[in-house]
């Protein structure tokens, strides 16, 4: 366990020693700020119209759901920049040898790296509570739904980071890791809509629903609607666990070649 702590400490330190963390947090907040401003604008207009009895069906909760769906998607763009260096940089600097000749288990290394990225992501998630605060001040949001939404976000994040860690372990170039992680996450998201368009099936195996199931947005949306379903939790947790398992295998394989 102390190995995990040493790795987390080192990773966080190195995040904040490079401009990457600040730039990424800044960009994330900027993008979220733009979307939130838009959200406030729409909300005000509908509020005004509602007063004259013209518009119906747009509630604060529905808008909040859109906001968080956007956030879950934007985090797809943020993740690659945080996970790209995890293993690729160690390989490039030839420091993997240091880590593997220290009394540290491969699993501890992978978990440590994962937790460090997760911790940085948590900072962003915590900052986004500002929007909740605004909603409480000027509206009347359903707090339990906000709660489940955040739970969904945290789960979705773990699956993004684990995928990013895996890809970082497969290359020694940060740029390549970032690009592939981005492509992989985008594909993962798009599988939702691609899956809905496919009616083709292979015997009992229906490709369309399978793709949709494997894609995160469907699972996230039920959290955003206020539902905690076992199948969604299982999806995120097993996805993360499987990716981390593969990461461990890939990292260890560096020593067998």
């Amino acid at each position: 366990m102390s190995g995990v702590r040493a790795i987390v400490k080192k990773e966080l330190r190195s995040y904040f020693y490079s401009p990457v963390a600040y730039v990424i947090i800044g960009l994330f907040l900027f993008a979220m700020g733009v979307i939130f401003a838009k959200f406030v604008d729409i909300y005000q207009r509908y509020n005004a119209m509602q007063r004259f009895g013209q518009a119906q069906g747009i509630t604060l909760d529905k808008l909040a759901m859109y906001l968080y769906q956007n956030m879950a998607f934007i985090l797809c763009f943020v993740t690659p920049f945080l996970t790209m260096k995890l293993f690729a940089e160690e390989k490039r600097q030839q420091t993997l040898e240091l880590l593997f000749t220290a009394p540290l288990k491969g699993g501890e290394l992978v978990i440590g790296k994962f937790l460090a990225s997760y911790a940085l992501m948590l900072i962003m998630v915590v900052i986004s509570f500002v929007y909740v605060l605004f909603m409480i001040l000027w509206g009347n949001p359903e707090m339990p739904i906000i709660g489940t939404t955040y739970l969904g976000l945290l789960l979705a994040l773990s699956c993004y980071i684990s995928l990013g860690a895996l890809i970082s372990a497969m290359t020694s170039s940060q740029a390549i890791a970032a690009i592939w992680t981005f492509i992989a996450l985008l594909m993962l998201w798009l599988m939702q809509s691609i899956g809905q368009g496919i009616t083709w099936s292979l015997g009992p195996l229906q490709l369309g629903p399978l793709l949709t199931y494997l894609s995160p947005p469907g699972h996230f949306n039920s959290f955003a609607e206020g539902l905690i379903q076992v199948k969604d939790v299982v999806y995120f947790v097993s996805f993360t666990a499987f990716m981390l398992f593969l990461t461990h295998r890939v990292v260890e394989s560096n020593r067998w070649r």
Partner: protein
Amino acid sequence: MIEVRNLTKKYGDRVAVDHISFSVNRGEILGFLGQNGAGKTTTMKILTCFMSATEGSASVAGFDVFENPLEVKKRIGYLPETPPLYPEFLVSEYLAFIADLRNIPKRDQKKKIDAVVERCYLGDVRNRLIANLSKGYRQRVGIAQALIHDPEVLILDEPTVGLDPKQVTEARGLIKSLRSERTVIYSTHILSEVAATCDRIVIIDRGKIVAQEALNSMGSAGGTTRTEIVVQKMNENMVQVLKGLQGVKNVHSQANGQNRLIVESEAREDVMAEIARTVVNQNAGLIRMSPVQLALEDYYLNLIGGRSAQQ
């Protein structure tokens, strides 16, 4: 302390290390000598549990490298070919991370870090960014990293490559100062370095061990000594007369300079005296008579060069 038996490592079809066996005793400094690509680094990577072997076994401090890697790793300090550094850290932060990684309890960390900083002369750069350090300092930080947990065994892969002469001397001094308290394996392709620091050498060529012996036993192999004789004027039957002496095994007349002879004889004082008397009696005008130390360089080139001549 270190036992290696029939260790073999293949990269695909290429055999990097071919059934090598050697052992290192406690407190010994072993020079691991060989050309680039001879298999030195591979052997070290296996000993430090970074790599697996294809065949054979190795143990460090009684623990098998493959069965019990965690115990082995705790006892080894390792400096890879490229010092494994994080350029964005200060030297002190880096060493603190290594101390964490090595499970050194918090309360001992400061003491241990201070000790290696002093030992590796890092006092001046303690609070500098590793990215801004010169090659020599980086190498020293690398050595400090390997020493921080007081390992019983130290494995250094070409620790003096890229250092300037002053730094090389300092690094050697540092390694020598570890003698007797630690067991050191130390790879290099610089011969004078081995002569200056090591107790014993293992010469490896193309994955095979071609020689291993204690350093001071070389040169007088098999009780034979070689004597160089320089005279003013060589006379023709000198070689014949010398060859006829008891105890003399061979006489070579050197190509460079007609007035030089190398006499191979038994390493006994009476034989030496007899040779001297004979040369003087020949009236050739003896200028110099001196024992030839078979230099490490010759020894090494004999072993390695023999092979390239055969090809």
